[in-house]
């Protein structure tokens, strides 16, 4: 019985296979394929053998093609620079091995228009290769004088480091500076130029105390000794009686009166009325100004609306040092502090660490700084507390972050004769206007701009008018852009921009000896492939490239009609079924 069944089954299988083969059915389904990888060789003369090695290695797992195809799953670039045309992502790069030491200045960070009464930090970002154990010398020079010099011994082979340098302007005006980096053993030095346009500008700061406050008084005194600030103050000593210095506004809820100041410092903020708080909010949002609240006690008051803090924690200890989160080492000291139990979303700490005693938060285009160091004013001894320096620096940062009515910037700021310079101008009033196109009755925002390009002599006086500059509106409201061809004559040039009653200027330097910070082609290729989801490998790590490709790309699936019966392998089960059935019959002597 069993034999009969088995024979029947085998016969059925054979018949089924034969029948299916005759019918030849087609099936449509998603099917995985071997990924195709494009290997692009940028310089076949030098990198052909490397490309062959890559292809040989990748062939084990992928279909390798040498020309770009639409169905490629990834691209491997063999060479030392990004290709001119875009490629299929993810992109990987294979670089030839190199151990030659080299240094390049990747970026030069210079404050755009620092006050002349300050030291100007210049940060040079260096990319180093083969630098382990070598010494790096970086010097900053202005004209023919070296003004700063840093020497470092490098511990890593390939690394990127920031070298802080500083420049002290001898007078207001634009100055070209040059950073020169020399790595011992490297064939060449790296040079980059920059422009420092020191301004004789003073930041207007308003102190407003609804009642006399020692904290505010001593912060104000610190600023009054700093030539970078112009301090105006009002201290309400009694109802209707105040002590004014300068010409403070009568009320805080008048934006037009308040917009003169970059920073408004409030002592004893619990004395502010709801109207005052609204005025300050408008000042921050519409003017982009900075408001500093100097608490000397913690009571619930209208200003809580600005801080967004739900609950406060107060703590009294022996005086502790509150470390600044800036790169300087200035610290504040206080014994009585209040701080938010949970820092509001978007807020950043200025001083205090685990206890964010001084912090700031964006409010519209402006910012709010809150100090909960209630008795920091009592610790003003410079040997133990940086009270004065802290507040001078913090308020300088706050003032610099407040945009002037019109800003204009040239990019690049130092260029060769005949090179194109792009000028970006922003009209604050228009830029910070809350414009809602979908609101019924919305009125268009108007901003006009006129500009003049002039050449500046060494003494800083305009010697000859060059030409007018035509700005065109940029993508955003209140923003304008212009492109100007740099004059052929080397020198310092100024673009003076006027919008209504406000004016601004930007300078650029035309020089015949321009060296820009730039990323080396290898580093650029590294960044290029990272931006495309891949990584760069060296020739000695080809296997790593293969593994990275395998883990990054998925085999492509696509809908396909296929014919399962067309496989030659069907002959095996067919033959087996027939043979087995015949053998069973022979054993039973049925055949």
């Amino acid at each position, binding site marked *: 019985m069993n034999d009969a069944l088995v024979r029947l089954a085998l016969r059925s299988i054979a018949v089924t296979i034969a029948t299916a083969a005759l019918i030849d059915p087609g099936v449509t389904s998603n099917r995985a394929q071997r990924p195709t990888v494009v290997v692009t060789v940028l310089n076949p003369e030098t990198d052909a053998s490397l490309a062959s090695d890559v292809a040989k290695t990748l062939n084990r797992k992928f279909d390798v093609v040498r020309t770009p195809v639409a169905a490629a799953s990834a691209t491997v670039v063999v060479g030392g620079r990004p290709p001119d045309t875009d490629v299929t992502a993810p992109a990987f790069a294979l670089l030839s091995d190199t151990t030659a030491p080299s240094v390049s200045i990747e970026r030069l960070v210079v*404050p755009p228009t620092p006050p002349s009464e300050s030291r*100007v930090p210049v940060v040079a970002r260096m990319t180093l290769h083969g630098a382990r154990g070598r010494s790096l010398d970086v010097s900053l020079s202005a004209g023919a004088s070296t003004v*700063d*010099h840093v020497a470092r011994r490098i511990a890593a082979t390939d690394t990127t480091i920031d070298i802080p340098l500083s420049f*002290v302007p001898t007078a207001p005006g634009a100055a070209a500076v040059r950073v020169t980096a020399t790595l011992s053993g490297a064939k060449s030095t790296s040079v980059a130029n920059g422009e420092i346009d020191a301004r004789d500008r003073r930041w207007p700061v308003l102190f407003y105390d609804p009642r006399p406050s020692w904290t505010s008084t*001593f912060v104000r005194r610190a600023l009054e000794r700093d030539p970078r600030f112009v301090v105006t103050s009002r201290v309400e000593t009694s109802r209707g009686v105040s002590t004014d210095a300068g010409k403070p506004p009568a009320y805080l809820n008048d934006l037009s009166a308040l917009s003169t100041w970059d920073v408004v410092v409030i002592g004893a903020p619990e004395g502010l009325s709801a109207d005052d708080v609204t005025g300050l909010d408008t000042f921050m949002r519409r003017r982009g100004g900075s408001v500093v609240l100097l608490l000397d006690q913690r009571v619930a008051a209208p200003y809580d609306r600005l801080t967004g803090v739900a609950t406060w924690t107060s703590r009294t200890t022996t005086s502790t040092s509150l470390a600044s989160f800036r790169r300087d080492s200035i610290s504040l000291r206080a*014994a009585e502090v209040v701080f938010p139990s949970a820092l509001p979303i978007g807020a950043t700490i200025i001083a205090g660490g685990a206890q964010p005693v001084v912090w700031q938060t964006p409010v519209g285009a402006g910012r709010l700084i809150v100090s909960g160091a209630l008795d920091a004013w009592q610790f003003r001894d410079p040997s133990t507390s940086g009270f004065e320096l802290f507040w001078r620096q913090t308020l300088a940062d706050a003032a*610099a972050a407040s945009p002037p009515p019109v800003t204009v910037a040239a990019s690049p700021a130092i260029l060769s004769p005949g090179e194109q310079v792009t000028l970006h101008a*922003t009209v604050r009033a228009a*830029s910070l206007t809350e414009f809602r196109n979908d609101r019924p009755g919305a009125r268009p925002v108007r901003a006009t701009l006129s500009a003049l390009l002039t050449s500046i002599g060494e003494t800083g006086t305009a010697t000859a008018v060059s030409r007018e500059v035509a700005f065109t509106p940029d993508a955003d409201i209140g923003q304008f852009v212009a492109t100007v061809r740099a004059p052929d004559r080397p020198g310092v040039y100024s673009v003076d921009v006027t919008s209504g009653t406000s004016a601004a200027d930007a300078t650029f330097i035309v020089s015949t000896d321009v060296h820009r910070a730039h990323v080396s082609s290898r580093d650029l290729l590294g960044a290029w492939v990272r931006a495309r989801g891949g990584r760069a490998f060296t020739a000695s790590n080809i296997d790593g490239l293969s593994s990275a490709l395998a883990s990054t790309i998925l085999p492509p699936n696509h809908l396909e009609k296929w014919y399962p019966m067309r496989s030659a392998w069907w002959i095996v089960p067919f033959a087996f079924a027939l043979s087995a059935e015949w053998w069973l019959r022979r054993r039973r002597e049925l055949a």
Partner: protein
Amino acid sequence: MRADAAVVRDFLARGARRLAVLSAANGAAVGLTVALALALAGWPRRGSMGTGAVVGVVAAIAGALISVFVSSGRRLKIAQSVEARAPESRNLLVTADELLVPPAYDYVHELVFARAARLVRRLDARTLFPARIPVSAFVTALVLWLLVLARPVLPLPASLGGPGATAGANGLPSIDAIDVVIQPPAYTGQGKTSLRDPSRVEALAGSRITINVRARAERVSLETISAHDSLTKRGSIFVGNVVADADGYIALQPTTADHGGARRLIGLTVLPDLPPRVRIVTPGHDQRFDDGHRQLELTVDASDDIALASLKLRFTKVSGSGERFTFAESETPLSITRRDERTWTAHGTLNLDSLALEPGDMVVYRAVAADKRPTGGTAESDSYIAEILAPGGIAASGFETDPEQDRYAVSQQMVILKTERLLARLSTLSADSLQSASQEIAAEQRKVRAEFVFMLGGELADAPDVTASMTDLNEEQEAEGEADILAGRNANAGHIALLRAIRAMSRAAASLTVSEPTTALPYERTALTQLESAFARSRILLRALSTRERLDLSRRLTGSLTDAARDIESSAEPAASSRVVALRRVLSEVATIAGTKTLTSSNASAASAIAERALRVDPSSKTLQEASSLLAAAADAIAGKHERDARERLDRASSAIVAALRTDLLDAPTNVAGANDARLSGALVDALRSRPE
């Protein structure tokens, strides 16, 4: 025969004299040669013509005497010398010479003398002993010596020791070398120090600095931070003196009628002679006695950085009461043990019995040490009191003003003691017990503090409750007085120390209130140290009542409210830092020189002048001293046509000046964001905060 003998004797004597003269000439020539060699070797110093002449003469005479002495043997054997030079005498003169002593007159003698006389009449001593070579040697040595001696006044190049040209090869005057001799003040007993071409000189205050300048110039001017003078020309050397009295510089400039050469700048650092340090080791504290029948054994330590001159113990007897005090000053002898001239220890006895002290009288004593400065560098130790108690009274502490006895019951020392005891049993105490004990000590600390607040004129009611705030010390009152402090009106050291003590007490009390005795103890000790300092420093605490505190109570509430007006002032204008302005100018000038394509002698002069100005900004700044030295070196390098060196030094000088400037300025802000970026951040924060939880 006698006549013949006399002729022979005269001849031999003449020969001996001639030989002596020639020996003297030879000796003098040798002496002059030695003097010449010494002069060439630099001794005596160039320019000292008088000394050089004396040395030469002495050397010549010495040489002559030595030579004459050495040649005395030859003169005794003059006959042999003549025989050697006149072979025809055939031993006749030697025989005659021997027969002359003793003189005998027989036939043989007669014959010998007669023949010898005939012979010597034919001989000439000048031929036998020619003077040509000794005289030539002497004259040659003399001439050469005179030439060497007269180098400074001869038209010789400076390299040969002459005054040199009055201008360098470039037609400008220049300085070849500077020798500086520092002579410390005589009272120090220290020797001279010599320096050659220094860039910086360090000298003790009062030192005399002698400057010898070898220059190719007609004049050399000398400028210091406070004076301008010309050096005196002595031969080829220009000499001047400076007294080291303050940090600064010595600028030297060679000049001719038409031109000024490159200035040479020498930084000058004046090291002050520090005053002596003196202290009374024993008893080292105030004492109170029931009667005056006793002696005080005193030990005093004194030291000085150079040398002590005297150490005395002075005392003042204070007697009387009320407003009729009398003061009598006196001294008591001390037995001094000198470990070395800088460190002395003295012992003495103050016999109170001999002072006839009455109850209530006191003796205030102190040690006074002086160093050897002629201007009188003296220092006094802290003063201590020995007081005779009045009958039935307690010690008049002099520092406690409240009559309530219990206010004095707890001293600061007692607070410390109690805190230490509390800390010792900290591990055995429960939290409640610790809090209770700690707060009890806090209350006592506040009590002590209150005494001193009262002493300073403060009202106790003004001080906030320490339990409510850290600001137990009325900081606001202190802040109001800040202007007084800044103006120096509170310069009384005792007053300041007492303020510090009160501040420390406040913090101690605050820590005790929150049960932190470990934190409180250092403050308590600080308070005690400051109290001791306050009372030892001046012995006097002025209870000054400022004008602000003098309230005319009769005028209170009598004004018109409408008179209360807005007080309007102009905005404060910060004063520009003169240091920053000056350093910026210096930096700008250095940059100008560095930017010059080809450095010339005028740049050298400018660099030298800038070096001087840099140092003038702050002579005591090490950074500026370095910058000044580099600028001076750059000036030299420019003058010497070493342009590469000059530029390297100018670079380093720029960096040093910038380093000095950096300390006076703050960093420019770097977080300058555009309005759009800021608006975007604000919008993001608004959106996140408005999101439902």
